[in-house]
């Protein structure tokens, strides 16, 4: 019914329309308030549940929408991964949505290839360009199509997989610099299950971490952050103890009760030293029964021997072993620095051995293995494509780059946040190789180092504007399904990659059209979840489908006596005389592997340890700094056999001596004005080394030298190196 007020409004709008006939802005501003969208009340907020894609952890979020704009992202309290909590990167997702440099129209190369110069073109032209390329490749040599993405999960991965299969190309490569290959292989060797485990931190009494920076990086920082809080405080009489071994006092290590610095790449020897004491003193029933290990060579790995290799005192190793043995359930976990050495497999297997000796596998407070395949069996033969893929994809990327260089590919489809041109070691010469592909098409929201090499860039919606689903790698026994929905109306002219692939398949016809027979990705998602007894509207309201009880069986770890991992030492490239320090690199807490560098909020978030903003730095210990005549704040040139860069020195009081550490993430040459030209890129110092048994990237595998250099400016830090206040004064 039309009341007086409504009539006047319409009358006003009509008068306006008559005055400014043909003005496009009118319907956008006036009509929506005459006929307001559903649920739209001025001043009242709406909350939509969706999934965070700022890192691969896949937390659940709820987004406050006010007057059609996303205002704030919160954690979804119902979501089993993050329980209503969210990290800094997740909070900053809004800046990706409203980023001034976000792509809103398709871009076509307008200059020499690789120049990053583009002109805007309409979608029709862009799709025609894409289809011309696809059709000719399809007709002449379908295997000459390459798809290079970040690891995808859920049905978007399925769409890509089906597209490539139907197209006839086997070259679908996913790259994740922080893949968990060594973890997977070690889990297979130690427990007989090739999967990511669930660490029950909340229920553990003793947490042993070997460079496991689980609170700031790794599989699921918020999940572990929440569990860590529960481990410390949720039980009335137990405060779980946390001991950290690692090359530097990281943010995670700072939370430990004891931080014991070890030489990079020797985490496995510490673990074997602890295992030695556990077996020798029969500290647990499983250790008492592990006499076979002792004779297989464990008796050689005395704490004293371990101390010599690692730098941890024998007394500390003995003490930690006894505490770990007598405070069960305990859990041992390892992180990226232990995994991405040339001996990563050994390090992780040795850490896994501790869990076996503690006898806590499959028990509360220990580690267990979800049976994801069984949980998703109802999705049929393609279920595996929905699940989290933890591999780095390094061997496949290496092969793809070689083939690119040989001119084997005629067309490349790129997507994802892992930005290979930025994150691959310089010796890959990725840029050079990629430009040998005659046609490069990117699906992207931003022009980073990789996408700016394209011939055509198709703008994609951010994760806050698209439909999707996600299966997170940690939390809820691997059975949670997170559903994503647009929390705002897409305000740029974008199309998601699955939507474009579905449309392209339709146009290609034949098997491609048959493999992707839907009108849109959203329609496919609805079909995929229909008929499962799920109320999809309710599921979207909750942010996903979280079964109350684990329906599937857990994977059973293999029985039998544990085997002794074959000891291997980490290899470091470079002549020790010329390059005296070992390089340790770690993902920045704020910027992750570099994907967060274009968001001002994250650039201005002080690093927890160095407290620096907007720039990176190189950390050395006080003795090492003194030996090199360096002091805090000096400029240095960091050189490895593979590259060099300049950075400011931060003298870190708790880092293993003989180590230089750098955060990754900074040092972009492109990726917009907030990211570009802020120091050097530490990835460019890295060798192309691999972990010896899994062929995963070995980042901790080179030596570096530091030479004092004059640099302009200074490292901006919020805590003055001499201390703003003394800690004693604030008490």
């Amino acid at each position, binding site marked *: 019914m039309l009341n007086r007020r409504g009539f006047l409004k319409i009358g006003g709008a009509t008068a306006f329309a008559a005055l400014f006939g043909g003005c496009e802005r009118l319907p956008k501003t006036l009509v929506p308030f005459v006929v307001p969208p559903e649920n739209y009340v001025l001043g009242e907020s709406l909350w939509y549940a969706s999934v965070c894609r700022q890192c691969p952890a896949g937390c659940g979020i709820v987004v406050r929408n006010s007057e059609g704009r996303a205002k704030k992202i919160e954690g979804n309290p119902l979501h089993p991964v993050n329980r209503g909590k969210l990290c800094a*990167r997740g909070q900053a997702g809004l800046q990706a949505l409203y980023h001034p440099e976000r792509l809103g129209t398709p871009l076509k190369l307008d200059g020499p290839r690789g120049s990053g110069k583009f002109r805007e073109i309409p979608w029709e032209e862009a799709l025609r360009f894409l289809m011309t390329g696809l059709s000719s490749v399809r007709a002449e040599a379908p295997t000459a199509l390459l798809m290079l993405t970040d690891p995808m999960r859920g049905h978007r991965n399925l769409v890509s997989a089906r597209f490539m299969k139907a197209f006839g190309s086997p070259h679908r490569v996913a790259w994740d610099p922080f893949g968990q290959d060594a973890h997977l292989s070690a889990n297979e060797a130690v427990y007989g299950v090739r999967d990511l485990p669930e660490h029950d931190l909340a229920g553990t009494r003793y947490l042993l971490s070997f460079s496991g920076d689980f609170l700031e990086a790794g599989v699921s920082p918020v999940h572990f952050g929440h569990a860590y809080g529960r481990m410390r405080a949720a039980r009335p009489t137990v405060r779980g103890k946390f001991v950290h071994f690692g090359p530097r006092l990281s943010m995670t290590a700072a939370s430990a009760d004891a931080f014991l610095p070890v030489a990079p790449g020797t985490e496995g020897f510490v673990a074997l030293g602890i295992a030695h004491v556990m077996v020798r003193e029969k500290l647990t029933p499983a250790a008492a029964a592990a006499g076979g290990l002792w004779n297989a060579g464990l008796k050689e790995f005395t704490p004293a021997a371990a101390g010599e290799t690692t730098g941890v005192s024998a007394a500390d190793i003995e003490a930690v072993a006894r505490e770990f043995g007598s405070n069960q359930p305990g859990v041992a976990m390892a992180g990226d620095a232990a995994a991405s050495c040339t001996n990563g497999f050994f390090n992780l297997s040795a850490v896994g051995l501790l869990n076996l000796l503690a006898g806590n596998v499959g028990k509360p407070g220990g580690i267990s293995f979800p049976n994801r395949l069984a949980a998703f069996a109802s999705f049929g033969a393609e279920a595996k494509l929905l699940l989290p893929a933890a591999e780095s994809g390094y061997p496949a990327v290496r092969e793809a780059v070689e083939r690119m260089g040989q001119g084997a590919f005629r067309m490349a489809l790129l997507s994802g946040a892992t930005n290979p041109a930025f994150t691959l070691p310089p010796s890959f010469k990725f840029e050079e190789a990629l430009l040998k592909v005659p046609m490069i098409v990117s699906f992207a929201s931003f022009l980073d180092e990789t996408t700016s090499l394209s011939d055509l860039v198709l703008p994609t919606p951010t994760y806050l504007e698209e439909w999707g689903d996600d299966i997170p790698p940690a939390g809820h026994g691997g059975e949670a399904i997170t559903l994503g929905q647009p929390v705002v109306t897409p305000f740029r002219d974008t199309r998601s990659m699955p939507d474009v692939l579905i449309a392209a398949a339709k146009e290609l016809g034949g098997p491609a059209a048959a493999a992707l027979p839907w009108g849109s990705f959203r329609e496919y998602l609805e079909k995929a979840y229909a008929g499962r007894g799920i109320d999809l509207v309710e599921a979207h309201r909750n942010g996903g489908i979280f079964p109350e009880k684990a329906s599937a069986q857990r994977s059973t770890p293999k029985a039998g006596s544990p085997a002794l991992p074959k000891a291997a030492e980490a290899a470091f490239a470079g002549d020790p005389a010329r390059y005296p320090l070992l390089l340790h690199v770690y993902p920045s807490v704020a910027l992750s592997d570099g994907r967060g560098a274009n968001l001002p909020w994250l650039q201005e978030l002080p690093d927890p340890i160095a407290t620096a903003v907007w720039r990176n730095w190189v950390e050395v210990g006080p003795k090492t700094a003194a030996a090199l005549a360096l002091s805090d704040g000096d400029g240095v040139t960091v050189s490895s056999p593979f590259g060099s860069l300049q950075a400011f020195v931060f003298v870190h009081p708790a880092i293993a001596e003989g180590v230089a550490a750098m955060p990754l993430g900074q040092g972009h040459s492109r990726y917009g004005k907030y990211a570009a030209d802020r120091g050097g890129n530490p990835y460019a110092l890295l060798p192309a080394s691999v972990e010896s048994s899994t062929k995963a990237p070995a980042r901790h595998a080179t030596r570096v030298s530091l030479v004092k250099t004059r640099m302009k400016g200074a490292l901006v830090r919020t805590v003055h190196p001499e201390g703003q206040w003394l800690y004693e004064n604030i008490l």
Partner: protein
Amino acid sequence: MKRRWAMVIDMDLCTGCGACVVACVAENNTPTVGESEAGKGRLMQWIRVVRYFRKEEHDETRAIFVATPCMHCEKAPCEIVCPVYATYHDEDDHVNAMVYNRCIGTRYCGNNCPYSVRVFNWWDYKREKPLDEQLNPDLTVRSRGVMEKCSYCIQRIRRGKETALMEGRPIRDGEVLPACAQTCPPGAIRFGDLNDPESAVTRMMKDPRRFRLMEHLGTEPSTVYLKKMRAQGR
């Protein structure tokens, strides 16, 4: 009904991750200042996570994180020096409040704050379009020459009170949370009403680990801390 809002920060749980900082920036329309302004000590974040290095036994260095929002002192040194009553004590909520429109930018309050939690708008910090679409409509964007600081997310307190009033019930404990407390992954930041004898913060106030920052100054902060613990042995 009068309330005494208080915040308890458990340093034993704080991991230093900085989620609170970005949550606060997103909630409170805090500008980004850029590298050169940051170098002059002009970061505008209302909560900061200060890192202290501390030598302990075995000559080991430990890092301790102290998340520092406004202390909302009951005897606030900032309030008594403001010539225009721009910063005053809100008697209904027991928070240290700011009226931005009164502020004339003397910066006396910032000067007198022992915790250095007040930040001053040295410029009109521009938000490049469309980043301004994100701005929270519940509070203002401050202009140049105005002092600002943590408000305990007063807009959320107001909304919580209004909702409770409309539904004719008291505010439940944990219903009103500032952005920092809401997002904190390990749950180190707790917030609640000390006038509610059942609230979590009232209980935590009795914790023997409780201390206040610079307690000797007698500012009676409403933000209190629980001391970091360290397990015995190795």
